């Protein structure tokens, strides 16, 4: 930091480096370095461009992949569902017309956009990254300012490579200590959301810090930043460090040779300065975090696996009591039921939150040598074709298949049930995804969010289970 300069946060530094121009009222024209595009939120944006006679300004900084709406079963016959097929065909037509890099359905690099971006080295520290998807916050794990945008803004970025933005407020969340046995990044982020609430981060960018965050691998950091949006924050950030750099080195789109050295030297200047100001600061102790599961229909409805379904009547206001009663009614749960007595019908291991190789290894370690419980449908949906290949090289697919799991192709799948992977009404799912909203995984479906290891434990026991009782310490 230059002498006399105001100490800045990681967010402030990335923001300042991307302001093209400040308009009179404080709105900034913010430059966007990487634009990720998928099939569901882009067709209307490309159509808008065409109608206005415009072309993408920087197709070379735009990358596309189909993930939300693609089948995760055998794809050799193409996409059966006509509307889904049209959406993917429309994307393919648009990327061809405008010269945008695209990872097609039959390419091993295809997968969930937030798994593919980092995997290909498209995601780098210090960049601004947007996508028409709220879980773009994932890329903040690399120290990139990354956030979700709507389709009108997708069109704006295509046409101008910028967005009109006002700066966010800075929030610092420190997680200190050492995580206990059986606790993962997923438990950390669920604990954070339970603490600050689903609107706690509204208007803020959350920077995660503390020894727990530092000690996480990149997959864990991505899980945490991914669910920033579930705390209301559009973006999460983790300062880049040697863990980040060694993960990125040699990725196809990462810089090489001298450019790599220059980039790393720059990236080392990004972490927040000592004395930088945050509008709010939250501290969590790792020792307070147990393996967690959700019980309701909002990601803030979290209890330890050793706990019980809470009683709505304990809430302070009638509005809150009514909301919780409605949730329990939807979830088919009674107050006081032990979480570990809740039986599940489906187990879903996948999504941009938890579908990376590290997640699959954690789940396989629990499943190894066991069988999926009778009456339970369990599926693993790897985050990308490359994750799938890596898992197969390590023999994880055999562990899952021998236990009775379905081993599927990469995509968003049952996280949001746009493709045929949906819950049936009333079905209860142990899920490694990010949202337990009503109907999220299929109309009438009931979702309990948890870590991959905990979902694996649910698969082999047929109920919500404490993973610490299944694996040796």
């Amino acid at each position, binding site marked *: 930091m230059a002498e006399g300069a105001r100490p800045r946060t990681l967010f402030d530094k990335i923001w300042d480096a991307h302001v*093209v*121009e400040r*308009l009179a*009222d404080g*709105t900034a*024209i913010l*430059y966007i*370095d990487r634009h990720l595009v998928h099939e*569901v*939120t882009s067709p*209307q944006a490309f*159509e808008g461009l065409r109608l206005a006679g415009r072309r993408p*300004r920087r197709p*070379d*900084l735009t990358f596309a992949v189909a993930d*939300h709406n693609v089948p995760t079963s055998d794809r050799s016959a193409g996409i059966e*569902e006509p509307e889904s097929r*049209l*959406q993917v065909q*429309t994307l393919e037509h648009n990327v061809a017309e405008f010269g945008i890099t695209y990872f097609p359905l039959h390419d091993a690099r295809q997968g969930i956009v937030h798994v593919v971006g980092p995997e290909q080295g498209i995601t*780098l520290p*210090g960049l601004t990254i947007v996508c*028409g*998807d*709220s879980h773009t916050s994932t890329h903040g794990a690399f120290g990139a300012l990354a956030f*979700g*945008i*709507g*389709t*009108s*803004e997708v*069109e*704006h970025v295509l*046409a*101008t*490579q*910028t967005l*009109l933005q*006002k700066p966010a407020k800075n929030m610092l969340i420190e997680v200190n200590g050492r995580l206990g046995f059986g606790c993962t990044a997923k438990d950390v982020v669920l604990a954070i959301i339970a603490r600050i609430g*689903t*609107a706690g981060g*509204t*208007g803020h960018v959350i920077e995660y810090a503390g020894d727990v965050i530092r000690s996480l691998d990149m997959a864990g950091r991505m899980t945490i930043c991914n669910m920033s949006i579930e705390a*209301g924050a*559009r973006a999460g950030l983790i300062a880049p460090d040697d863990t980040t750099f060694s993960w990125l080195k040699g990725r196809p789109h990462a810089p090489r040779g001298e*450019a790599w050295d220059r*980039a790393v030297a*720059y990236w080392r200047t990004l972490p927040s300065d000592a004395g930088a100001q945050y509008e709010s600061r939250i501290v969590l102790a790792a020792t307070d975090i147990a393996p967690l599961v959700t019980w309701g229909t*909002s990601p803030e409805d979290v209890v330890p696996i050793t706990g019980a379904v809470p009683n709505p009547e304990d809430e302070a206001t009638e509005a809150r009591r009514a*909301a919780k009663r409605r949730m329990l009614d939807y979830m088919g749960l009674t107050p006081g039921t032990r979480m570990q007595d809740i039986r599940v019908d489906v187990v879903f291991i996948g999504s941009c939150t938890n579908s990376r190789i590290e997640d699959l290894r954690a789940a396989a370690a629990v499943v190894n040598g066991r069988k999926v419980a009778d009456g339970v449908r369990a599926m693993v949906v790897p985050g990308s074709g490359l994750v799938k290949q890596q898992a197969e090289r390590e023999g994880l697919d055999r562990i899952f298949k021998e236990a009775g799991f379905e081993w599927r192709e990469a995509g968003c799948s049952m996280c*949001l049930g*746009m493709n045929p992977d*949906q819950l049936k009404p009333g079905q209860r799912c142990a899920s490694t995804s990010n*949202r337990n*909203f*009503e*109907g*999220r995984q299929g*109309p*009438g479906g009931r979702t309990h969010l948890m870590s991959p290891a905990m979902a694996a434990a649910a698969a082999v026991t047929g109920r919500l289970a404490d993973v610490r009782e299944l694996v040796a310490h």
Partner: protein
Amino acid sequence: MQPFTTLTGIAAALPIPNIDTDKIIPARFLKTIKRTGLGSALFHAMRYRADGSEDPEFVLNREPWRKAEILIAGPNFGCGSSREHAPWALLDFGIRCIIAPEFADIFYNNCFKNGILPIKLPQSVCDRLAEDAMLGANARLTVDLARQVVVRPDGEEIRFEIDPFRKRCLLEGLDDIALTLAHADAIAAYESRRRAAEPWAVG
């Protein structure tokens, strides 16, 4: 974009906290490549029963709120996904203004891009407006964006705050891409600077 100036209309109260974008429009209705026609899927799970018929208890299925143009909502309205299909569905149904104690960021942004005015007012004020809304057609609300007021049926005016740039874009129905493209030279100059300093970043 259709400008938003003033609106006098029927308001419907939906004072439930954390109405997420999946509740506004479930993902299985996002398989369209158009912006229009999504109104029938709005609030699908709350609005229709399992057999597909309308739930007569749901406010937007009842007269006069079937014609509501203003929604009085609960805190953290629009949380969840970035899908612009949520404001498109509201607009297609006929909603032009949403009043709530708090909105999720991306949804809030998306409203402005579609000629919908989202207004943040304290919970206690929203509660009073929800009581007005319950009175139905005899208690229309007026929203005047230029003066930044909501006018209650008894004539009481409630002031709201709004970002001046967004206000202007709504009032004039401006195309913000055209506004930004007016700064194309500044964008090109910025790219040259970055290319020199961080060639890996902007190519």
